[in-house]
Structure formats: C-alpha cells, structure tokens
C-alpha cells in the first residue's frame, strides 16, 4: 500500500522538479504579497508587528489556493487520473499521497521561508518558532482540505474561482488558530492551546479528507 503512495509522491515531486517555474510562482506570490503590506502601510513597527501573523497566514492561504487548481487538473488532462482511479490501492491512499506531495511542494517552502518574511515585520525573535510551528501544522490542513475542493471542481469551466469560493471558508478555522497562536505568544501567553487545536485539525483532516477527495474524484471523472 505504501509503495503506491510513495510512487505517487515521488512522481509528483519529480514532475514539480522538472517544472520548477510552476512551483516558484506560488512561492514568489507569497513573498511578494507579504512584502507589499509593509510598503503600503508604512514603517510603523508596532502596527507591523501586530499585523504580521495575520498577513503571513492570509498570504499562505492564497498562495496555497494558487497551486491547488493544478493538483488534479494536470492528471485529468493527460489521462493519468483515470489510471490513478484504477490503481490497485484504495483511492483514499492515492488522494492522501497527492495531498502530501502538494504540501511538500507548496506548503513546506512557506514554512521554511516564513521566518525570513517575519523579519520584514520586525517580529520578535521568540515568535519565529511559534510562527513556523503554526505553519508546519496548518499548511498540511490547507492541502488536505484543498484537495477536496480541487477534486470537486475538476473539469469545470471557471473552476478556479469556484474552488476559492468553496475552499476559503473552510480555511477559516486554520487561519484563526494559526494567526491566533502567534498573537497569543506575542501577548506573552502560552500558544499551546491554539497549536494543539491546529494539530487536532490536522489529524482530523488527514483521517477524513482523503476519503472525501476520493469520492469527489470518482464523481468528477464520470
């Protein structure tokens, strides 16, 4: 079972590596959006410090949305999606592998680059680990939930807009808890509660989202 999942992850990473520009677009989008805010708002350190978690998290949501459209669309277009549906393993496992590959390509880089972005907002150094940890726990949830939306809107005209309408409301809890944990830490309180809730969300999404994605894929491919 793990062999098929590993095969999908390796395949998607290999395709992403050979199409590096696609991956770079989403990451650059994140960097540029988060850099625009300090430029537009002005160099008011206190204000920047207080908006930093929210801005970074919203930019992470949007950058994740940007690459979600391609999650299944490319496989659908070249016919490999049909082969995934006919694979020898449960479709939920395949869907989980696709979501994992999506996170490795579009979520993990955000986690790694976020401390650098936080520098622009003059975020105090002790908050960096909290921000990174909240993103580490939260961004996989974005990929998992996003995969359901991507599967549902597969092959629709204007699917990209519909996808954001479907998925962004579902991202709200992740946004609240992700940005909230950094705010808590900034206020000198322990962020454990929010981070644990994020971890719970991640476990919940990892357990159920792949199966919902699988059901959505079967409907879309018909």
């Amino acid at each position: 079972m793990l062999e098929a999942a590993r095969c999908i992850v390796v395949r998607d990473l290999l395709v992403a590596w050979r199409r590096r520009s696609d991956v770079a677009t989403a990451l650059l989008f994140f960097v540029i959006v988060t850099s625009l805010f300090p430029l537009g708002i002005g160099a008011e350190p206190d204000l920047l410090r207080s908006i930093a978690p929210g801005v970074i998290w919203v930019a992470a949501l949007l950058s994740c949305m940007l690459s979600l459209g391609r999650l299944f669309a490319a496989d659908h277009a070249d016919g490999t999606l049909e082969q995934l549906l006919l694979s020898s393993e449960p479709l939920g496992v395949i869907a989980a592998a696709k979501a994992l590959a999506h996170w490795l390509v579009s979520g993990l880089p955000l986690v790694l680059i976020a401390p650098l972005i936080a520098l622009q907002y003059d975020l105090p150094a002790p908050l960096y680990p909290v921000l990174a940890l909240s993103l580490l726990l939260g961004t996989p949830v974005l990929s998992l939930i996003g995969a359901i939306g991507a599967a549902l809107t597969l092959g629709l005209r204007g699917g990209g807009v519909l996808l954001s309408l479907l998925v962004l409301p579902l991202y709200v809890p992740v946004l609240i808890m992700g940005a909230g944990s950094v705010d808590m830490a900034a206020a000198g309180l322990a962020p454990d509660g929010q981070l644990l809730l994020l971890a719970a969300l991640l476990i919940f999404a990892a357990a159920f989202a792949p199966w919902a994605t699988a059901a959505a894929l079967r409907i879309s491919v018909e």
Partner: protein
Amino acid sequence: MNLEASHLGCERGGRTLFSDLSVSLRGGELLRVAGPNGSGKTSLLRILCGLLSPTTGAVRWEGTEIRRLREEYSKQLVYIGHAAAVKDDLTAAENLRIACTLAGLRVSPRQIQQALDSFELADLPVKRLSQGQRRRAVLARLVVSDSLPLWLLDEPYAALDAAAGRLAEELIDGHVARGGAVVFTTHQDTRVRASQVIDLDA
C-alpha cells in the same frame, strides 16, 4: 475468470447511447466493440472498467458487482484509454515504472527496458516523442501485464505504424492464447480474430 455485464444502459448528456446490452466474457475470449464515432464505445469500456456507472444494469466480476470490489477488481485489469495517460515531463521508462507500481505489478528494471526495446522507444521525456511514439510508450505496458487477466483497450491501434500495430496484435493474440480476456475497440482492420463482436450501431 468471468466478466459479466447484464442489461447495461448508458445515457450521456440526455442521449441514450445504448440500452439493454448484455455481455459475458471468459478467459481466452476476445471481444471487439464496433460502431461509428459517438456510438458509445468508449463509454462501454469505461463502464466495464468501473470508471463510469451505467444508467441501468450492472457489471459483475466472478459474480460480484465491480462497484463493491473497487480496487480488488482494478487489480485484475489493464485499461488503456483514449488519452495517453503518460506524464509529459517524465521519460517513457519512468512512466512505465509508475504505471506498473500503481497496478501492483512487480517488474524489474530489466523487464521495463525490454518492454521499451520491443517498442523501439528511446529513454526521452515523453513530450519530445511523436504522437505515435507516445502511443507506443502507453502500449509498452501490455508487454509486462501478462499476469493481469483482463485487458480493456480503447483504440489500441490509433496513431500506430504498421510495425507497432503488428506488435500490438501479437500481444493481444498472445494474451488470449494464455487464457486472458481482451475487450477492444477499433476502426482499423485488424488480423486478430474476435470471438465476439458487439455492434453499437445496431
């Protein structure tokens, strides 16, 4: 092995493609699906492999409905559809290896190389290949798929030249001779002798 479809009906976009179609296929049999463009050949194949649910009727594998078998049924078959089902950025060998892993087949790198050699494919990214070579890269799967009893092939000869077409015919013949079952659609003349023909035009 026994594939049985009873009273299949298919409706696409408000148009009835076929209705009350029954097929029974055993090992060593070759079923050819004939009919003009748009008569529902591809839909029938997709129904038989479980990608599409029929409007009426059911498909059974060894007596059990394929909808309940899911991957247990997928494990038994190769489906080669209209679309190439290869990743443009990967090489033919990488594509073949992935297809085999997903199908649950264990193949050695040597077997993969042999399969590609028999279709005279260079190890290039698929996007550099021509339409016909791409089709060869897809059909190379058949060389390593002996152990899967059911082959469902949608237009296997499309875009192939004479030599590759003959090779595909030999593979199909060989599979049927070994006791496998094949369902295929084609517009071209083919030397393989079908034991059953379904004409969707009638």
